[in-house]
């Protein structure tokens, strides 16, 4: 620390070069911050303390097949099950048929399965008492400027009502406020009553079926046994089920969507390889230019190790400065990107994990890049260097 000002002065000896290099490093780490946020949002989906308590039961056949509503009662009697809720896909669209809004028809107790989604007591009461009531995610409320009490039309791209019309009217009675990143999805969906849906839909379209069950278990450690017991209930029937923990189910979907790890990994590989080269070149130049200065330092009594450490510290400081600026920029920019994508992307802000990984990378890159110049500086022969040989 004693020599910090010396290192700092050496770093900004050539201001233009250092600034240009800093911008390049910042660009690389900006990219790192953003891509790591994407990776994290894929990784962490469904992984939370509350999520670990939830099991999802769907048809074993495929995700478009449904299950009888009566199965819920049987699942509730499985030992270890705390409560059972169910939901069905409604497939709503607002104003334009292509403007899809994720809408689910759910049982009355569905929202109780998600304690991390905050719904006010008034809204819960109003939802239970209003047949056509819906709970709307906070992001959607903002996006369409809806207020509680509004009546809104939704088109279903699958289900017509008894009169054959696919236009449904709903009353907004409450707002869903997700309080954890893992359930941020609930900020962008609409929940309606399954009972109302099943009554009002044209006969033959639903017939008392539900899409999937959401079960909470008493003990997280028993989750796998409970899942097997739930599947055993309907084994060898015409509606066999497949039960997974929420984390496993989400991970399976994400994996089918894209191999994000591979894409992000290869981009970052290319970026950091380029960065290594670029910063390495800058450091080489910096040390080559200062050969005589370094020799003077040695003459003054700085040890070989001391010079090595100072050059290394300089390169680490360079990468660290640029990197922190880059990830800082990512932290600032990401909320803007999410807001501008119209709900298509919902990236988490750069978390502590990304910062830690980023800083570890900066240190590593700084050391690798500084290694050769620092080695040269250490081996420098005072007489030769001062003579300009």
């Amino acid at each position: 620390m004693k020599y910090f000002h010396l290192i700092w002065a050496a770093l900004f000896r050539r201001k233009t070069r250092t600034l240009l290099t800093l911008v390049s490093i910042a660009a690389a780490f900006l990219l790192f911050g953003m891509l790591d946020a994407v990776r994290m949002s894929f990784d962490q989906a469904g992984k939370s303390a509350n999520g670990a308590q939830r099991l999802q039961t769907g048809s074993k056949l495929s995700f478009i097949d449904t299950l009888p509503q009566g199965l819920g009662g049987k699942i509730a009697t499985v030992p270890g099950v705390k409560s059972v809720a169910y939901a069905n896909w409604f497939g709503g669209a607002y104003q334009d048929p292509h403007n899809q809004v994720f809408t689910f028809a759910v049982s009355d107790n569905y929202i109780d399965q998600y304690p991390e989604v905050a719904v006010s007591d008034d809204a819960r009461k109003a939802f239970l008492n209003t047949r056509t009531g819906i709970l709307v995610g906070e992001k959607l409320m903002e996006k369409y400027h809806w207020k509680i009490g509004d009546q809104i039309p939704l088109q279903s791209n699958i289900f017509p009502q008894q009169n054959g019309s696919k236009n449904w009217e709903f009353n907004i009675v409450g707002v869903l406020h997700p309080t954890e990143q893992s359930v941020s999805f609930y900020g962008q969906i609409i929940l309606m009553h399954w009972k109302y849906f099943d009554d009002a839909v044209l006969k033959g379209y639903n017939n008392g079926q539900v899409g999937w069950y959401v079960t909470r278990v008493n003990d997280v450690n028993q989750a796998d046994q409970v899942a097997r017991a739930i599947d055993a209930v309907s084994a060898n029937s015409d509606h066999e089920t497949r039960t997974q923990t929420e984390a496993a189910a989400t991970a399976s979907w994400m994996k089918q969507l894209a191999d994000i790890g591979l894409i992000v990994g290869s981009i970052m590989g290319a970026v950091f390889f380029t960065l290594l080269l670029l910063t390495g070149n800058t450091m080489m130049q910096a040390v080559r230019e200062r050969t005589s200065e370094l020799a003077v330092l040695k003459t003054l009594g700085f040890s070989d190790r001391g010079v090595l450490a100072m050059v290394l510290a300089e390169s680490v400081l360079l990468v660290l400065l640029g990197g922190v600026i880059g990830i800082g920029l990512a932290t600032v920019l990401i909320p803007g990107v999410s807001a501008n994508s119209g709900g298509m992307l919902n990236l988490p802000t750069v978390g502590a994990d990304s910062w830690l990984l980023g800083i570890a990378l900066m240190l590593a890159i700084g050391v690798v890049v500084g290694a050769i110049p620092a080695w040269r500086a250490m081996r420098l022969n005072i007489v030769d260097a001062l003579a300009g040989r």
Partner: protein
Amino acid sequence: MTFLFNLLVLVILVVALFVWVQLPWYAVLVLAVLFAAWMALSRRGRQAASVTSVGVSTLRQRLGSSSVVVIGIAGVVGVLVALLAMGEGYSETLRKTGSDDTAIVLRGGSASEVSSVLTRDSILVIEQEPGIAHDKQGKPIASGEIVVAANLPVKHGAPGDEGSVQVRGVDDQAWALRPNVKIIAGRAFQPGMRELVVGQGAQRQFVGLEPGHEVKLGTQTWNVVGVFASGDAYDSEIWGDAGVVAETYRRGSSRTSVFAKLTDAKAMDAFKAALAADPRLQVDVDTTLNYFSKQSEGMSKVMRIMGITVGSIMAIGAIFGALNTMFAAVAARAREIATLRAIGFRGVPVVVAVMLETMLLALLGGLIGGLLAWLIFNGWTASTLATGSTGQLAFTFKVTPELMWEGLKWALAIGFVGGLFPALRAARLPVTTALREL
């Protein structure tokens, strides 16, 4: 004064980049020819050429720092082309699936096949509408098809890892409708039997889809009897007899969609009008080309935006890397440049020489990046859950000449920006100070 000059340079730069992005290849060719003519014919041009050749011949001494420009730009172009090739491959696969002389009929308001239901009665009506081609026996070439999904274990996955695959129940006209679908192993399924043919893409992704194997679809066991290849989105599907699939999935006599071969592309309007005018029907109709292109729109847009965003951020990094290198190069050659100016060379040849050198390095980087992307990623297979489909869609990355060209344009733009400022510095360096340096 300097500030105003810099501002002017910046404005010109932005305008130049904007024009550059829009420029088609032949305009670039014309520019290149004009530039070469200027170099060969005018006095200034010849001066520029000789200064450039001096710079290029000393490149070898600056191998390390010059390679920063080349590799930095190769990285940008490689990543950009690879990401764009992903989007291109995806939309190409879906676009190829349709044609403009086959129509797809869905229930009114359905966003995709899987959310549509057509009753047996309406299918019979649709098949009799005008505009549909007939085969030699006089039967309309139209196929009522049913699309469902099945969960199957995936290859290379953890035990119990299942993926979703789209299952299509078809009748015998399906083959006439899609002449590009060919059986490449085994045989076609027999109507009325619990037999399946699988697409080669699906076969690559899921376990047990080999001819002679049995798989469980729905509650029933089916025999895989053949493999087909089509080179488009159907490759990711599994086909069986429509009646048997509908029965297994408890759909009775209903189907999800009707595909119809039209007499020609112009018959579409008449067919559409006839369907709209028929009071018995409430359906949407489109050419399959439109339908499948629309399905790919959202996803390929996302992929393209992702590619451009990542590419832009990397390009900023590369521009500053190039600036760094070229400033260093100009500084190292300050005395040489000042000498040239002292003996009468004007500013323009010096500017041109430095920029040309940077752009040559950039071109080399762009070529290397594009080539690497092509070598590594062309034909690379990936899969995703496609919108409007119930299963995974396998597609291959497609590095087209257009994408390579786009990558090269990016490379040259980066070289242009990275060379401009060092070139200006070189040209405006006061001769006396530069000569006295060192």
